[in-house]
């Protein structure tokens, strides 16, 4: 096991820079999730750790070794691919044993390692099968088995669950968590799914357009987003953003007569800001305490929750309420939130105003 260090890591394809200097440190045994929308460079970052992409500048170290110039096989890592990348003509057993055979391990050592991995992942009855005779979830487990037999210093997961259906994904998420608890190997996990990120990560790196926007534990990121992008990306349904202007101490005036009170930050009167409030923090209140009033445009029943889409002039907001409301579209709604749950962002830079 080992820590992984990123020092000002950059990646360019020709003159196009896609990763603009990432600094991060992954502690020994930590489970780090790199999350971001497609094209943000998260997979590229992971592939640079694996040695499948050249590091244009900066350094990546595994343990105390800078691995920039090492071949993948010399980095002591194992990777799980999105499409599993199992060798189609080999049995499950051979798929798992292949890496060990190349390393010249003895037959008995290989057998012990494969049997142990198969035991952990409950693959024992499938060892003789070919990958095409397995279901998606089983293939994914084999891919993980291939990674764990080698007992590498670092596991790399590249969107391992995106080819699975929703139910299986939840189950595999749980299994990955169990696996990590059992083995305690440093893990880097790339996903675009913020639910996976929230549930799996010890800490997460939220990436956008080649930059690490925020590094922190899931709850830190959720409760204290550093930028407007992070605030909007983490949390589902995503945060409401409303345009406003500073209106004296602790107040922002919205475009259509609403006034939002906030607890944190300083906003000069007249400065344009973006107000962010999560749907789950908006409450229906009486008109006297309301931030703003709006008309109900759409009601989405999710079973446990109800999402109410409210129009406030040109702005729109979503309110998340527990099940059991009897609202009608077209009704007028007055909403407010705890001022400490109101986030302010700079409209140009997207940075949080604190």
């Amino acid at each position, binding site marked *: 096991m080992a820590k992984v260090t990123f020092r000002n890591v950059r990646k360019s394809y020709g003159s196009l820079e896609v990763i603009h200097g990432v600094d991060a440190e992954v502690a020994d045994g930590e489970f780090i999730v790199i999350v971001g929308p497609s094209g943000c460079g998260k997979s590229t970052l992971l592939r640079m750790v694996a040695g499948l992409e050249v590091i244009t500048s900066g350094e990546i170290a595994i343990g105390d070794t800078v691995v920039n110039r090492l071949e993948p096989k010399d980095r002591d890592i194992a990777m799980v691919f*999105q499409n599993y990348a*199992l060798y*189609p003509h080999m049995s499950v057993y051979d798929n798992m044993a*292949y890496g060990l055979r190349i390393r010249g391990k003895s037959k008995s050592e290989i057998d012990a390692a494969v049997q142990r991995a198969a035991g952990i992942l409950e693959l024992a009855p499938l060892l003789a099968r070919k990958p095409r005779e397995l279901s998606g979830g089983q293939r994914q487990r084999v891919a993980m088995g291939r990674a764990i037999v080698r007992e590498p210093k670092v596991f790399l997961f590249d969107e391992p669950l995106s080819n699975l259906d929703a139910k299986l994904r939840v189950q595999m998420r749980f299994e990955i968590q169990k696996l990590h608890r059992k083995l305690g190997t440093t893990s880097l996990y790339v996903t675009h799914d913020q639910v996976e990120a929230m549930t799996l990560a010890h800490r997460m790196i939220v990436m956008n357009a080649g930059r690490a926007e925020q590094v922190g534990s899931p709850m830190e990121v959720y409760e204290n987003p550093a930028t407007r992008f992070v605030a909007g990306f983490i949390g589902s349904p995503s945060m409401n953003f409303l345009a406003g202007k500073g209106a004296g101490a602790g107040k922002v005036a919205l475009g259509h007569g609403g006034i939002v009170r906030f607890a944190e930050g300083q906003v000069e009167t007249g400065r344009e800001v973006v107000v962010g409030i999560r749907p789950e923090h908006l409450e229906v209140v009486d008109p006297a305490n309301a931030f703003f009033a709006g008309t109900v445009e759409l009601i989405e029943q999710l079973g446990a929750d109800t999402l109410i889409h409210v129009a406030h002039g040109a702005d729109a907001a979503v309110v998340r309420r527990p099940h059991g409301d009897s609202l009608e579209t077209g009704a007028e709604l007055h909403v407010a939130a705890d001022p400490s749950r109101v986030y302010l962002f700079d409209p140009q830079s997207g940075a949080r105003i604190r």
Partner: protein
Amino acid sequence: MVENRPWVTFLSHAVLIAGVVVVAFPLYVTFVASTLTLDQIVQVPMPLLPGDHLIENYSQVLTAGSTKGSSAAVSTMLMNSLIMALTIAIGKIAISVIASFAIVYFRFPLRHFFFWMIFVTLMLPVEVRIIPTFKVASDLGLLDTYAGLTLPLIASATATFLFRQFFLTIPEELAEAARIDGAGPIRFFLDVVLPLSKTIIAALFVIQFIYGWNQYLWPLLVTSQESMYTTVIGIRRMIVGGDAANEWQLIMATAMLALLPPAVVVITMQRWFVKGLVETEK
């Protein structure tokens, strides 16, 4: 499509049967002729039922050959054909699989240039370059040798192109997974690429074996000794003049023998063809 129109079924079967007859009848006539005596063959009309000289005719061509024109034994010719077809088929596959592996998996200067050079030669049939090729083969002293028969035909743009197209469909992640597992390029080639190419290799083997077996123009040029004749050339050399001057029963027996090996290869490899089409191991 599920249809129940009896006359359509009848018509389509009639057309198919007519097609089979058109293809099969000449073969049948060849077979019948190979069991008759020369006198019976030159009768008009020729008998359409097999005669009783089958064993006599076949053993004569296999051991002694015909008495007019070429007099080499057909067994030697069959052996020559077999050596030529196998060498060409195996050589072509061996060279083109390695060439395509290099083109697909390695980055080297002028990679695309070389690929397109190979691709362009697809457009040049052997006949276009046959005179210079003959000159080269003759200068190298390859006339009347197995090397001369096979070497100039081994380089294959078609097979290289097909292997390249197939390799491009192998997911990139497999190569990456192998790299992480610690397999170098040669291990990856032997352990992953070759086993995955089994079915396409089988298909190419059939095609190239028949291509090699049926070569006519090139062996005609480079062989002058009877001991180096291939079967196809042998048939040609047995035909010396007018109708009555040829021993047609022996020529037909040789033709039947020449047909057998390609037929055997196709029939035994058929299973692989179907397998290659049905299951995509990727």
